[in-house]
């Protein structure tokens, strides 16, 4: 299955990625850095902890992983052939 997004035209997402971004709730301090750098709005802060909302529009840039001051975000590439794809990069 292939998904598209109205917000980000020209990009497709192939299903089957699984949760390739994981948040370690114990380490998370709820600083909200991940919500600020993620252009796809994948994260939200609930009860002072970051929560993964959806990876539907994730472009796998790893900004959340870079920015997290507590190293609470674990990022790894989704399985082969899944995730975002574009012709216009």
């Amino acid at each position, binding site marked *: 299955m292939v998904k598209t997004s109205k*917000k*980000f*035209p*020209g*990009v497709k997402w*192939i299903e089957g990625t699984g949760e390739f971004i994981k948040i370690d709730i114990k380490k998370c301090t709820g600083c909200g*850095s991940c919500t*600020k*750098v*993620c*252009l796809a*709005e994948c994260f939200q802060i609930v009860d002072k902890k970051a929560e993964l909302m959806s990876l539907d529009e994730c*472009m*796998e*840039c*790893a*900004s959340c*992983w*870079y*920015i997290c001051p507590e190293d609470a975000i674990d*990022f*790894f*590439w*989704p*399985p*082969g*052939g899944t*995730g*975002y*794809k*574009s*012709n*216009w*990069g």
Partner: protein
Amino acid sequence: MDREYDIIVIGAGFGGPVAAKLCADAGLKTLLLERSKEVGDKVISGLTIPFYGFLFAPSFIRDGNPPFERPSDGIDNYIITDLENEEIILDNSLKVPLPFSPIIAFGYNTYCKPFCQWLAHKAVDSGAELRTSTTVVDFIEKDNEIQGVITDKGEKIRGNIIINSEGSQGLLAIKAGIREKYPAETISLADTYDYIMPKEDIDRIFGYSVKMCWGWDEQKAAPPLGYGNGLMVWPYRNSLHFMQDQCLRLDNQKVPNLRKLFDIYHKKITSKLPWWRDLVEPRIKLRARMWEGFEIYVGLNRELRQLPLVKDGMILIGDVAGLESTELCDGVPAAWFSAEIAAEVAIKAIKAHNYSSQALKEYEFKIKSHPIIRWSISGRNRYNLRFAQKTHNLKKLKRYIHNGWGLGALTTFTSPFLKMVIPYLKKDPSILSKWIKMFFRYYQNWLYESYDYQRGTLAKSSQMKRLTKEERKFLRWMRFIDIGVVLMTRIGKKFKNIINSLSTSMNTFLKSFLPLIEPLYFFILRVSRPFAISYSQKLINFVKKANSATFTVINERGVKYYG
């Protein structure tokens, strides 16, 4: 112990396929792994590949027909000091002068996907095996030596040397314990818009120029420069890319809300910058929006620059080795250079059956002493820019932009460039004519070839015919140049020391004298303009009509390279 492959290359971006092709050419059993379904699915930013990338690229790129969207002859820098009152200063001093522009180009604008596919095809043609939809998740490691890879399907593939070109995040390199995660300050998030625009309008409004915008922080027109970058617009055949990029964090400041900031920058530029608002905005249609993180600032950090690039059984190339250019925010030339060096070292190591880091250390040495890589990753100009911006010093800002993206760039680039050129001339006397033919052929490709996105191939329309008198004259001239180079290198041998010291001190010379030479240079350009225009027309007409065989280069093995 038997291993299935001599070389396993991870990642089919700009570097990986080049390394794979060169290893396969040497007769090594090579596997190229790519995580996306099709090669080029995951590459985000389109780009301008600067001319030096092509000049010093592996010969199959230099002498081939890669897919381009448009040649670019220089940069228009817009320094925005007050957007509301339209106080904007233009610095367009970095331009190829007229009789040569646009045939001799400053760079070539291209979409990444077709280019990466072209490279991957070349690797496959040479005998490398390409496997897409395959994510490498871990390595087979024994006694601290990397002996192979483990894929997401659990398959174990053994190889003698792993060439890792996974890209800037370096997740696998971190797993292998060879690298660390880069700090957020080094990473620039590039938000890219792809617009469709009729070709005639692009020809008229942009011509062959890349446009860049810079501004004070509080203008909120372009992202803070220096540590971050700024804003770039580059034209393609019948589309254009708008890219704004900013570092994830600046100077230990609070993390900015990039989502909001990028929206503000984009709205301000598109609604208030005069040339965009009046000329571009009414003629464009949004086709795509995407983003990616780049490691623009890594080379400036001394500690990161000292990280190892090899381990027993593994070599890092391109972005994962931290080689993205600080100067031009472009990682492609360095990816090609490092891929070629890695292939050379790997081939040698495999012949000697020695895959230890000791044997691969030569790669690290060659990368660290490569004049252009060294120049491109450690350009201090970014510190200066940031400083000028923070202190609101317009005079300095203008100067540093001039030194980075204007004619002043010659004061840092000339020596590394000459240091690269001299060994090339010594190694291959016909290199100069090859370079000239390259520019002519690339221009002809831009005129006649377009990438067919439906079929994923180049549509070539020029035909092979008998050479005309003019074309034979051109080839005679090329031969004269070759002979000239041979004579010059012979004479040059006697003056080796003088030439070496001259090329080393060229930057210092230009630093003191370029401000004096510059007005003279622009005066000559202005006076010679009518003559230059007519000559450039002649040149363009010649290339337009010329038989494509005129510019074809036959490499040493007698293989003709076509797209």
